[in-house]
């Protein structure tokens, strides 16, 4: 049985006004997409295709020019809905707060007892292997990977039903990315949340996702959706699987022409 639709995008487009009053730039869409409850969905696409714009629309950080974005049957209208947790590409740790205090930020309005609050933070600290740094460390004393774990922990402590990840491992080295990917998979299994991941790394998408949306060059549209067919109980060892290479090759085949378009635009705009 197909799981129920968790997030539904229908005819979504986004255009941006230009400085000086010129014609608006058509950045995205139209896009029609359903995210199923509990699935891990990744989006790949060439640089500047509108991946982050799509992310912002689903997060409620901006509004669509046309079309609708629904979360659990209710429209997302320019405000992040309750039940949605967001992790950004850039380091968004608050440097003046300890690790624990950063994570507690997500619970400041939660109507729960002090004991429950503490238990939830302890649980997430344990889950993200941050317990030893909780009160003794500030973000500046942590590595890039650990700071990103703090950001993910701050999202998880809110127990979101939809987790949005905008290239969360982009600043990390390849080995750390693989390990962080495993952790995200583990958290996805434990929490049962729907995960929406934006990434430019084809191998990362192929390893993590159940389905991968491939976007065209700007204005970004969904060219295809690739099903990986992995078991839910997977880890980074899927990269040894022969299907992994086939999935990555298919993604590249779809993207090669689009990436070329982006490169062509860059060549015209920025001649040598």
């Amino acid at each position, binding site marked *: 049985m197909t799981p129920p639709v968790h997030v539904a995008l229908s005819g979504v487009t986004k255009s941006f006004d230009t400085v000086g009053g010129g014609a608006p730039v058509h950045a995205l869409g139209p896009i029609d997409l359903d995210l199923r409850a509990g699935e891990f969905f990744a989006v790949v696409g060439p640089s500047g295709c509108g991946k982050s714009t799509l992310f912002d629309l689903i997060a409620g*950080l901006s509004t669509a020019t046309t079309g609708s974005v629904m979360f659990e049957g209710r429209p997302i209208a320019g405000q992040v809905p309750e039940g949605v947790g*967001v992790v950004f590409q850039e380091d968004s740790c608050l*440097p*003046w707060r300890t690790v624990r205090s950063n994570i507690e930020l997500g619970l400041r309005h939660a109507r729960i007892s002090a004991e429950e609050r503490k238990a939830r933070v302890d649980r997430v600290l344990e889950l993200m292997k941050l317990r030893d740094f909780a009160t003794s460390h500030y973000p*500046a004393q942590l590595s890039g990977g650990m700071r990103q774990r703090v950001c993910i922990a701050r999202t998880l402590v809110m127990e979101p039903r939809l987790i949005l990840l905008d290239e969360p491992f982009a600043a990390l080295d390849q080995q750390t990315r693989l390990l962080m990917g495993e952790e995200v998979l583990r958290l996805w299994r434990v929490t049962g949340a729907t995960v929406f991941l934006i990434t430019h790394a084809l191998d990362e998408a192929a390893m993590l996702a159940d389905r991968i949306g491939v976007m065209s060059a700007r204005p970004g549209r969904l060219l295809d959706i690739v099903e990986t067919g992995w078991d839910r109980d997977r880890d980074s060892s899927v990269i040894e699987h022969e299907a992994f290479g086939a999935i990555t090759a298919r993604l590249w085949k779809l993207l090669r022409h689009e990436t070329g378009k982006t490169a062509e635009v860059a060549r015209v705009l920025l001649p040598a």
Partner: protein
Amino acid sequence: MTRLALYRALLILAAVAVLEILCLTGAIDPLTMQPPHQMAIDLVRLLASGKMNRAILQTVGNAAIACALAVVIGIGFGVVVHRLSAVRDTLDLVFSTYYALPTLAFYPLFIILFGLGPVPQIIMGFLQGVVAVIVSTLDGLDRVPRVLKKLAAAQRMSPLETALKITLPAAAPYLLTGAKLAVAYSIIGVIAAEFLMSQTGIGYQISFAYNNFDNATMYPLILLLVVFSIAVNGTLFRWERRMLRQRGLRA
């Protein structure tokens, strides 16, 4: 003590030693300036006698009120103006030319309006400090990383909560720079106002001593002001250094 602090202390000691030698050898007339050691002795005597207590309390109290008002109102105004780009564009010229205005020239007007009590002096101290705080606040808010503003939105924070929990703490190093300037400018504003027209305060006492060739009172009071300003700014400096270290912005 770090090597830098040692160099700093040696530099101050060297300057004081040069002044001491110039005074003791008569290169500087005793009627013009006392040797630094005599200033220190006179300061201890003055403080022990208690006859300057009221003046000291008045000046420090007024400067503290002026500085607190400059910091609170300056930061609040800065936060509001930062959200209103048209207002900011309009006021930017005022802010950038503000310190070219002779604000002290308005002091007689404030005396007419508020009398010879502490209010005009507090206003002068406030006016000297507030714009430095506003400018520092705007500068700091401009530099808050965009991702932290997105984080505030993702955490469903109201504008007030965003300011209190995200943008102002993120801009804190800049706010502290504004506060340091406000401390110095507020003291200068209050002392200058007391100097011009007042019934008490350190500025008034310095002016009175100057007019009466009373070096044994004037120089110790100037020394007291210097020590006080350095102590307050030193405390803020240490706080700032701790904050920057905590944020990984300083080794």
